[in-house]
């Protein structure tokens, strides 16, 4: 028997964080009954139903393997908890799906008190689509941001992964380790979109960290994005730069037109989901990608992505 999507939505709307595991179980499920309940859940949590955008700050944290994301997230988590903010972390693991299975080891590297009810960590495999952010993860971020103050989506990689995260996050932070020249190249060549915050980890390495930070700032200036903060952080004891990073993330959210960004993100998600489901053929039937986008732009802004997909699908028949 399926969980009751509407009831779970009501619990999240009341700020009941303990509903989160059941919400995630439901959103990840592919049985027909569960998909119906998921749709109900997301409908109840749409801006239209909430009467506005969900209040949580959705932050995407991405970067190449070994950049120190997990250690950084441990430090950030401690910082948010000290500031009294509840945190949900969705760790998207890149591990190979060759055998179908996956090994999800990320939560082990994040330090937190298991008795702390204000923290939720959930690991998921990257999904069948290469580099893609699973549908469930995007929905999860949207759903959990009604109840949690901060929702983090952690992904691995630079380029595609970062673009996918940008589709759902209010703020995107890209994490680079000292000497991480790839990111510099990706930025310059335009492969990677410019993130909202750049973080150079392992600041305790000294010189090389300082140089990486300087190089990144310089190239951002040359690209005309000098307002993007580049922060050097050492997440290991004695930590440094963590408070500044927390402030920078918060400041970005304050400056942001959240409604506008999320509306754009919901419409992009809907288009994406539609394309995955119906392919180029489906898009052509709607008169092409831009025609589909134009159609979405006419819809009521508070609709959740699934409702938007349904609008497109109606046009197909």
């Amino acid at each position, binding site marked *: 028997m399926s969980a009751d999507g509407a009831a779970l939505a009501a619990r999240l709307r009341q700020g009941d964080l303990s509903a989160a595991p059941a919400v995630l179980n439901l959103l990840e499920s592919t049985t027909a009954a569960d998909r119906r309940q998921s749709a109900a859940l997301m409908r109840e949590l749409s801006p239209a139903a909430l009467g506005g955008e969900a209040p949580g700050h959705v932050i995407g944290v991405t970067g190449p393997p070994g950049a120190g994301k997990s250690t950084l997230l441990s430090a950030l988590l401690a910082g948010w908890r000290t500031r009294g903010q509840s945190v949900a972390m969705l760790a998207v693991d890149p591990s190979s799906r060759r055998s179908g299975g996956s090994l999800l080891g990320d939560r082990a590297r994040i330090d937190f008190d*298991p008795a702390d009810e204000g923290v939720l960590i959930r690991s998921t495999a990257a999904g069948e689509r290469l580099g893609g952010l699973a549908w469930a993860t995007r929905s999860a971020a949207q759903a959990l941001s009604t109840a949690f103050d901060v929702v983090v989506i952690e992904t691995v990689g630079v380029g595609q992964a970062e673009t996918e995260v940008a589709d759902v996050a209010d703020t995107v932070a890209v994490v680079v380790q000292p000497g991480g020249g790839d990111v510099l190249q990706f930025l310059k060549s335009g492969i990677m979109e410019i993130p909202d915050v750049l973080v150079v980890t392992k600041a305790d390495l000294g010189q090389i960290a300082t140089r990486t930070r300087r190089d990144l700032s310089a190239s951002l200036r040359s690209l005309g994005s000098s307002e993007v903060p580049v922060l050097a952080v050492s997440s290991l004891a004695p930590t440094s730069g963590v408070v500044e990073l927390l402030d920078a993330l918060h400041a970005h959210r304050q400056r942001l037109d959240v409604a506008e960004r999320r509306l754009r993100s919901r419409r992009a998600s809907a288009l994406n989901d539609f394309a995955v489901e119906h392919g180029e053929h489906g898009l052509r039937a709607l008169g092409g990608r831009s025609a589909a986008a134009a159609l979405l732009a006419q819809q009521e802004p508070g609709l959740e992505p699934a409702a938007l997909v349904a609008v497109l699908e109606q046009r197909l028949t």
Partner: protein
Amino acid sequence: MSEHDPVRLSERDRPWMMRTYAGHSTAKASNELYRRNLQKGQTGLSVAFDLPTQTGYDPDDELARGEVGKVGVPISHRGDMAALMDGIPLGEMNTSMTINATAAWLLALYIVAAEDQGVQESQLQGTTQNDIIKEFLARGTYAFPPGPSMRLIADMIAYTVEHVPRWNPINICSYHLQEAGATPVQEIAYSMSNAIAVLDAASERVGARGQEVLEQVFGRISFFVNAGVRFVEEHAKLRAMSILWEELGRERYGVTDQRHLRFRYGVQVNSLGLTEAQPENNVQRIVLEALAVTLGRDARARAIQLPAWNEALGLPRPWDQQWSLRIQQVLAYETDILEYPDIFEGSKVMDGLVAELLAGARAEMAVVAEHGGAVEAVPYMKAALVDSHRERLRRIESGEQTVVGQNRFAESEDSPLTADAEGGILVVDPRVEAEQIEALASWRAERDQAAVDSALEQLATAAREQQSSVNLMIPTIAAARAGATTGEWARTLREVFGSYRAPTGVGEATAAAPDPQLSELRQEVARLQQTLGRRPKILVGKPGLDGHSNGAEQIAVRARDSGMDVVYEGIRLTPAQIASSALQEGVHVIGLSILSGSHRELIPAVMDALHAAGVHAPVVVGGIIPEQDVDGLRQAGVAAVYTPKDFDITQIMRDIVELVGSTANGAAANGSSAGSSAGSAVNGSA
């Protein structure tokens, strides 16, 4: 007998030092055991500490629950150490301590206990294991991150070379690498790379004091090796190690004194190959393994300790350990092996084997060097070990490698050896933990608290010094003298150094080779996914302080290869952490692994925590679980128990998939939400 008799020695060799790895319950009980063992002809001590002592927790810490006095003796302060060594003249004794993360602290307690006996530190002889890299790789009793850990080791080396000159400050361990699945080539290469990391750190520390000190340091480094049942190749391995060691000394560290260049090693023979099925066969395995380290004079062990026949069943009793000591004594005093020069000299086979191992080891050492040395290469080496172990298990499961009594010749009469009420093992009195906690409280109440506080403050100040201008041994000895406890010492350093989790090695494990049984299982998993709506998700957890993660890692990798989503968090989890992970991750089944004998306390604690968190996913348990404990675990709600005799991991996976399936069906029949009813029990596999 002429002086140049090529066949016989002019004088029989002195036997190696004979030890028994021992300690349990309390300092007093262990002291009595040591005295008895010495009376029986044991010639040195080998102290087994319990897991809280090894990882730097006091008996009253949450993480110590169920572990106090289990796999060794709890030593919390100088009073415990004095009781442990009571009546044993420390000026004459040679004591080996299996202690790593907290080695500096235990050596300090030993120095203070000697002071109490009126013995100066300069007279002390013995060994602290102190090999942290292999703790990250294989054994799991680390406490601090790699950088500060290496600093503690370098400080101990610098201190002992000057003040405790007959002490071996570090024993580079290849032993645990083999236990984690290392091939002989990996065992040689990783331990030598590890030695290089230690020597580089130490030479930086003592460098200013010149080449002479560095040569002494080189001369004080000994090895702790393993020997498996393929004893001819194992002997070749030791010859190869001695060649590499001498080469390393000459070429990398400029050592010229022949005495310092000698490869010195102690040994504990293989436990990984000991079986639970027909455990009496382990006796002959142990004897043959002992030959690997005694047969050839040029690569003979300096000190030997042998495991007991019943290690795969539980903790050995004094009688079991006596049997192993007697094996050594028969070898040394009845056989003729000590009468000859090296019996393999000029052997084409032996030389050929040695050459092969040397070539393989040099190539692998080059790979480690490319990673930036042993400390940086920990994730690489760990993943390689997980892969080797998986290959070993595959060979046993497929029957390519024979294990007598397990995958071949399995039929057996009932064994009289395991017929007693406890099943032929030692069961530690569960009251020990409460008594230790109480004793600790009165120790704290009676000591000079101000002196302890100030000693710990000085330790913290020294640890914060980035430049390592103060040798940490000095404030450590002062804190030991003041009456600080193991947990207080370690907590002080954790606060400065931070804590650490070693890589699990499973994420990098390569995909399984094609295997028809596994493909069939994957289809089963795919069908189950249809029913569940999600891919079956399993949490693999190790509660308690036990760091022996090889089994849990193999289960995790095989579950992934079967198509499941696997949450594996590594070692040292509290029941609360396991329950929180199970809940938050939404897993369908939980697998717990315990080898330290603390399952009686910890498994019910985990079950309670799961219940409190509202998690109803079925739980299976694997590890060294004595037969007579299985019913109790079942009553606590455990769906299935697996022990070392269940060597077919694919079969275990099949059971787990079936368990998840029947749990889901049961839930559907009850009309409750998925995963909410306890699964029907499945039987342990053949």
